[in-house]
């Protein structure tokens, strides 16, 4: 049963399975395990990034397409919800309208980009998407009547999801179940469903073709697969999921602006998470997102402690100051590419597979 829900794509490593169980349970119980605004915020972001990164992995890890336009779709989702709430007021119709129209825009745009430019060589495609994404970012900050420009949009959401709302009179496990927690669980459920859907897609015959295209598109064509169709579909599906993730982000933040959902920085974060987690392994999205967002959110705090400890040393305090946290994030980029060439999931799976391999290959061929 569980195997089928996971589309028969099991962790294939005991350690990995354990980690995943811990993380999923942790996220499911986060509001009660680690109460506090900041912790809940980190947990919600982890969830949203899991969906976002998994959708990107479909494109990058499974289909082998390097696109820098993924945040564009993320942003479309976020703006869709933000604009709808701003224009139509804080009600559920607005949410539905926002999600639906964002999806429509994303699907159309991804279809266009796919059909138009998937024929060019890989680097060129990457560069074109980079350019398109930066143009879109500019556009979003220019169209200030619609998008609020650089200031972005701050908006209200339906009462059920507002911090002031109380679901129960009494506290549950010492935590007041307010609208934020309701929102959190809404996001949790949506992300779980999205993840399982993606898992199914990559383990379907369709997903297998995507991997074949990644390996050798010319050969895939010769077998009778129309690669343009498959690539475009992969583009469209992945854009759709990214859009949904964007909707969740806006819902959570009750704010959206160009830097929040469209910036190149987020694109890099996504790339890094995919690589840390392990390309072409959706589970990597879970591990990578958690690890990365924890680092991103708590690095400054850690550095503050370290910096204080190094008081009096020459130069070191200048490096171990919270203000230089990006330095350490940069180092994380470099080291993770160094040490996890196949990502954490890849590593764990190799480790799990090695004893077995040794048994069969012991004897000289």
């Amino acid at each position, binding site marked *: 049963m569980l195997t089928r829900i996971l589309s028969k794509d099991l962790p294939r490593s005991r350690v990995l399975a354990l980690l995943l169980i811990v993380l999923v349970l942790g996220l499911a119980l986060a509001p009660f395990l680690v109460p506090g605004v900041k912790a809940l915020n980190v947990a919600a972001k982890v969830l949203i990034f899991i969906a976002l990164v998994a959708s990107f992995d479909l494109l990058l890890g499974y289909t082998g397409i390097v696109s820098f336009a993924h945040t564009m779709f993320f942003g479309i989702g976020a703006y869709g919800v933000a604009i709808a709430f701003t224009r139509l007021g804080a009600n559920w119709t607005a949410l539905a309208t926002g999600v639906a129209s964002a999806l429509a825009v994303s699907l159309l745009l991804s279809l266009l980009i796919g059909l138009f430019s998937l024929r060019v060589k890989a680097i060129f495609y990457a560069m074109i998407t980079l350019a398109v994404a930066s143009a879109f970012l500019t556009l979003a900050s220019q169209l200030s009547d619609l998008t609020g420009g650089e200031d972005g949009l701050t908006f209200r959401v339906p009462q059920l999801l507002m911090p002031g709302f109380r679901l129960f009179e009494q506290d549950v496990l010492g935590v007041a179940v307010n609208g934020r927690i309701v929102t959190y669980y809404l996001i949790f459920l949506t992300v779980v469903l999205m993840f399982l859907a993606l898992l199914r897609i990559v383990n379907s015959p369709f997903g297998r073709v995507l991997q074949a295209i990644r390996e050798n598109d010319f050969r895939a064509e010769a077998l009778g697969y129309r690669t343009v169709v*498959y690539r475009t579909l992969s583009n469209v599906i992945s854009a759709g999921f990214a859009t949904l993730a964007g909707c969740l982000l806006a819902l959570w933040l009750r704010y959206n602006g160009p830097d929040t959902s469209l910036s190149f920085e987020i694109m890099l974060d996504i790339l890094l998470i995919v690589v840390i987690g392990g390309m072409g392994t959706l589970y990597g999205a879970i591990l990578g997102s958690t690890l990365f967002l924890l680092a991103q959110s708590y690095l400054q705090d850690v550095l503050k402690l370290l910096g204080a400890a190094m008081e009096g040393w020459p130069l070191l305090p200048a490096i171990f100051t919270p203000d230089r946290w990006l330095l350490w994030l940069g180092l994380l980029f470099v080291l993770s590419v160094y040490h996890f060439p196949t990502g954490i999931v890849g590593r764990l799976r190799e480790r799990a597979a090695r004893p077995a391999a040794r048994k069969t290959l012991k004897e000289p061929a």
Partner: protein
Amino acid sequence: MLQTENLTVRFGGHVAVNAVSCAFAPGTLTAIVGPNGAGKTTYFNLISGQIPASAGRVLLNGQDLTPLSAPLRTRAGLGRAFQLTNLFPKLSVLENVRLAVQAKAGAGLDFWRIWSDRRDLLEKAEQVLEAVALTAQRDADAASLPHGDQRKLEVALLMALEPSVFMFDEPTAGMSVDEAPVILNLIRKLKRDKSKTILLVEHKMDVVRELADRIIVLHNGELVADGLPAEVIASPVVQQAYLGVSPKEEAV
């Protein structure tokens, strides 16, 4: 019945295939021979749609395939094995073949079932591996196979596609003498199925002599001879241009 009419392709000023008209009937194995660079592979590329023709048409059972892209021609029944081995290097041998089987079954767009639930596809793929004697290597990455086994896998992909037209481009090149017969036997077996059209580019004349029902000769992109194996091999054009005692040899 596969036909090419006036099939031509130019690369810049160079005419690689020049107005080749020819018909290939089911149940025959036609060998295509000619010097290096004669246009044999290019002729295959034109038929299977890897490169667009400058002029001329490709017909299969009367249907004009010329406007179709390569994948659509494959689906129409043209199958192709490449001269330079062309596989999915990082996928397992079994998965390589399974993908071909899946393509044949037209199951590629199914994105709601789990791939391994399609037992039929898997079993079919295993049968094909069995036929080319690669079962032992089914879980190895294609890239780690020695050259000869990669050639076998190349042929296996073609077999799995079950096309009505088989195009082999030097299937046994670089294969050791005790392995080559596996492939040749497969081709022999194929020949027995009278509904299949087989095209074979091959430089080993003994193989050609034994297998071919008919030989056509390409030279500088043109069709210069067409006929029964014995006749064609004996013809002066083949003797000189192809097998020819080279001028060097005479000089020495």
